[in-house]
Structure formats: C-alpha cells, structure tokens
C-alpha cells in the first residue's frame, strides 16, 4: 500500500483538478450575473413605484415558488432576483447535471475500466466522484458572498454581513444534495446524457412539486424536495436560519451517496 494516497482521495483530486478551469469560469459568470442585477437596483428603488404592493398582487403559489417576500429592500431584491433563481434553481440544476455525467460518463467512455483495473473499490469511485465536485460548491459559496458584499456597497447600499454569510453557508448542504442526486442517478442510468437529463429533470420536478403543493393541504409532501429546505428569502429578508433544513439536507446527501455506492457495487460496467 506504501505511500499511495487513498483511492477516493486520488480520484477526488484528479476530478477536481480537471474541473478547475470550468469551475473558475462558472464562478466568474455567476459573479457577473449578480453584479448585473445589483446594478439595476438603484434605478428600481428610486423609481417611486410600490414594488411590494405589486408583488403582493401575485398569486400565492407564484410568490411561494420564487420565495418572494419583499423586493423593495436590497435583501429582498437579492433574494428574489438572484438567490431564489440563480442559487437555488440554476446552480442546483447545474450541479445535478454535472454530477449526473460523472459515473455514467466514465462507464460509457471506458474510463471506468482503466480506473477499476487498478486496485480500487467501487465505493471509492463513487465517493471520489462526489468529493470531486465539492471544491466547486465551496468555491461558489466562498467567492459569491464577497462579490455580493462588494457589489452591494458599490451601489451605495448596506447589507447584514451575517445574513449574506448564512445564505451561502446554508447553500452548501443544499448544493451537496444536488450533487448527490446527480451521483445517485449517474449510477442508475447507462448513458451519461440520460443520467444528466434525469438528474436535472428530477430536481426541477421536485422544485415544481414543492411550489405547487405549498399552498394546498399537502404542503408537507413538499418537504420531499431539497428546495424545501433552503430558503434564501427567509435568510436574507427575515434573518431566519433553517439549521434543521441544513441537517436534513446533509442527511439526504449521505443517504443518496450511500445508495449510489450500493447500486454501483452491483452494477455491470456496460455502457
């Protein structure tokens, strides 16, 4: 065994290194997207329109879906225009999509043959591929709060630092769950394209489901969706930190990765 690193660590490192450039590009694009929206804020807030009255007129289901509480304050504006959309939906779907391509992609391309011809356990592959996406999640949630803070100051507003930190700290478990959904689907589908679309579609369907049932008697069923346990509007506008939700998401992540391990252990590698 000697001085070789643990296989899961070697796989995670190799995967993360391969993603380094793509991760930086995505982080840059999302930063630009955030700054673009922030640049709109001053003209919106000085336009003299009662935006909160406007959004109050939206149907409850719509407000629920996009977490709209108030958008006239900088916190509400950021929550609705950026976090509910980009952070919850866009980044979540993107991560599920990326993760969906991992194991199925390796199997289909024959890369998995070369990995597993080495003394590597199937478990190590699943865990390594999962961990390989963690640096991207961390990078996004470390860089973007800084960008957001600087951007808010730049447009002449102020924002509570701890809420900004919290909205990203609580995003980490949510994003990890999205990755885990993708990894789990990746061990089920035989082709990467299918795995990616199924992972993305499943997450989106859960989000829609949660939004629709939220204003009905079956609201609790919406808890099935990862999106139910991360509420950027609640954090930014109301200062409510859903720590239980984060714990639920971390538990779900663990379960999903464990299921992926169980499934992949028994799988035939035939792409």
């Amino acid at each position, binding site marked *: 065994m*000697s001085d*070789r*690193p643990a*296989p899961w660590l*070697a*796989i995670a*490192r*190799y995967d993360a*290194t*391969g993603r380094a450039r793509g991760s930086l590009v995505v982080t840059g694009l999302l930063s630009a997207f955030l700054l673009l929206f922030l640049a709109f804020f001053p003209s919106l807030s000085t336009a003299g329109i009662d935006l909160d009255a406007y959004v109050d007129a939206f149907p409850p289901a719509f407000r629920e879906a996009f977490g709209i509480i108030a958008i006239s304050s900088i916190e509400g504006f950021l929550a609705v225009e950026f976090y509910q959309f980009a952070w919850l939906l866009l980044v979540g779907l993107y991560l599920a999509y990326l993760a969906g391509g991992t194991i199925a992609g*390796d199997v289909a*391309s*024959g*890369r*998995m*043959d*070369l*990995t*597993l*011809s*080495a*003394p*590597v*356990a*199937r478990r190590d592959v699943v865990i390594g591929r999962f961990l390989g996406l963690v640096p991207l999640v961390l990078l996004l949630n470390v860089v973007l709060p800084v960008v957001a803070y600087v951007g808010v100051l730049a447009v002449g507003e102020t924002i509570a630092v701890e809420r900004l930190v919290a909205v990203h700290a609580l995003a980490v478990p949510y994003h990890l769950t999205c990755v885990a959904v993708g990894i789990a689907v990746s061990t089920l589908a035989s082709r990467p394209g299918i795995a990616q679309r199924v992972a993305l579609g499943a997450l989106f369907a859960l989000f829609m489901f949660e939004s629709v049932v939220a204003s009905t008697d079956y609201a609790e069923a919406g808890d099935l969706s990862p999106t139910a346990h991360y509420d950027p509007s609640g954090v930014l506008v109301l200062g409510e930190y859903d720590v239980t939700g984060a714990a639920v998401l971390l538990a779900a992540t663990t379960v999903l990765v464990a299921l992926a391990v169980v499934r992949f*252990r*028994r799988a*035939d*590698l*035939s792409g």
Partner: protein
Amino acid sequence: MSAIECRNLSKYYGDVRGIEDVSFAVQNGEVFGFLGPNGAGKTTAIRTLLGFLSPTSGGATLLGNDAADPVESRRARERTGYLPGDPGLDRDRTAKAFLDHQAALRGASSREDLVDRFGLDESRRIAELSRGNRQKVALVAAFMHDPDLLLLDEPTSGLDPLLQEEFAALVRERVDDGASVLLSSHVLGEVAALCDRVGVLREGHLVAVESVSDLRSRGGKQVRVRVAEGVDRDDFEVRGIMNLRVGETVSFTWTGEYDDLIDLLSGYTVLDLDVVDAPLEEAFMTFYDGDVPGPTGSGGGESSGSDAAGSGAVGSGGEGR
C-alpha cells in the same frame, strides 16, 4: 496455482449471450491467447475476469483470488495490468496528468523507463495525441507497476508495426521475469508470435484450446506441383489433402506423411514441386474445420467436411450458419 483459472464461466447481457461455459487455465509464466472474430466474447471474458461484469454462472480466479468477490478481486488487481484495445482516456487532460493519476492508484515503479522506451511525450493533451500515442499512454499505465498478470485486450490495435515489435519484446521480457499473460486478438499472427497456447472463441464458446507448436505441426505443408500429364481432380481427393485447387498447377495442403505424398506423386511426371510450411492461417483453418463442432454447436457431432473450405476464417464473424 494457476495465474488464471476459469470454470464454466458464462455471462449473459439479459438474453444476449456474451460468453457461455468457458473453462480454461493460464499457467504461471504462460502466455495464453484468445483468438476469435470481433464479437466472439473475448472482451466479455476479460472484463468478467477483472470484475467489471459479474458472471451469470460459473467463476474464475485471478492469481488465486475470486474474480467475483470485490475484496479478492481488488487484491488481484493490485498485481494485474490491463490494456484495452481502445482505452478510455480523458481527452482534455495531459498524458502526464492521466499517468500521475494512474500512478496514484496503482504505483509506477517503471513508469519512466516505459515512457522513454516508447518515446511518449507526456506534456501533450490526450486529445492531441494520435491513436497510436494514446495506446502508448494506456500501455504505460498497464505495465508501469510491474504486474504479475497482464490482461491485454487487442493490445496492438492502433500501434504501427515498429511499435508492435517493441510491444512484443516488452511482453516477452515481462514473461521472462515471471509474469503471466492473457492476450486477445483477432489476428492469428499476433497470437502465434507471442503465445504458448491459443484458445479459440467463437460466438461466446471456447471451441478449442491448442498449443501453438501443435497448431504449427498440424498445419501440414503447402504443396504446389506441376506435372506433365493431365490431372483428374478425383485422383487427388485422397485422405490428407485439404484446400485442393486443380489448374495448371495443382496446389493443396498436405496433412499426411511425406511417404504417402511421394507415393501419390509417383504416378506423375513431376515438372516442378514446391513444399513449404503452411501459413499458420491455413493451419488454423485446417485444424478448426476438421476437429471442432460447427459454429451452430447444437447440431451435434460432425459438421460435414464438405462445407469446411472457407467457414473457419478468423475475422469473418457470423458466417457458417
């Protein structure tokens, strides 16, 4: 203990047969060849041995470890090198990054030697490499941890003749050092040049296992003879003659004794006679058609000699029904 022992190994993909009831053993220090057309089950057999596929029935051991047991399989893979014919490599990484990764997984005591020997430029991105150079990357990965067992699946596809020679030399060196090899190919020459024994796979069945030297001696002689008299084809339709062609010259493969050949020709005025070792391809076909059940298998007994002529050609899958 054998390097590989395969007992009644079968693998079905759903209803589709990959391999069926395959049994053979590769002795320590032996080079064993899988020969068969594409789709005959060579790759399925090798991937089942490596634990990538779980057997439908039967079993196998690699270096004494159960191939179907994850823990034992991993122990075997510690000392095994695998080279696929069309390796899946990350196109957007450099050869160096890929080999670094492989080294982290399996060790790399002789990596530098191999990189030098095959003249691999590690700094290039894999997407920029030619097919042959990509094959070199996989080759280094398969050999760099000095494995005791090598599973080589169509290893020289994509290598130019010079590199094929270098590759063959490398395999021989490793065998001299005590390694055992299972090599698959649809090219008889390649198998014959490297292997001690050959197993013929056809439509998922191992239809014959033969030592290469037996195969050569069984192949008989290629005879070309020109005689003064007119030749009646029936005069040459005797025991020991195969692939008979009667024209201006009479040519055939002779599998009998020399004396009988001389007796046969004594009735003619021989103008020209040429007797050489039959090429192994011919030897193989001769052997293949005479001794093994036809590809449909279940027909039982003998597939009559008359349809023998062309049906045994390796590399022409699916015919002979």
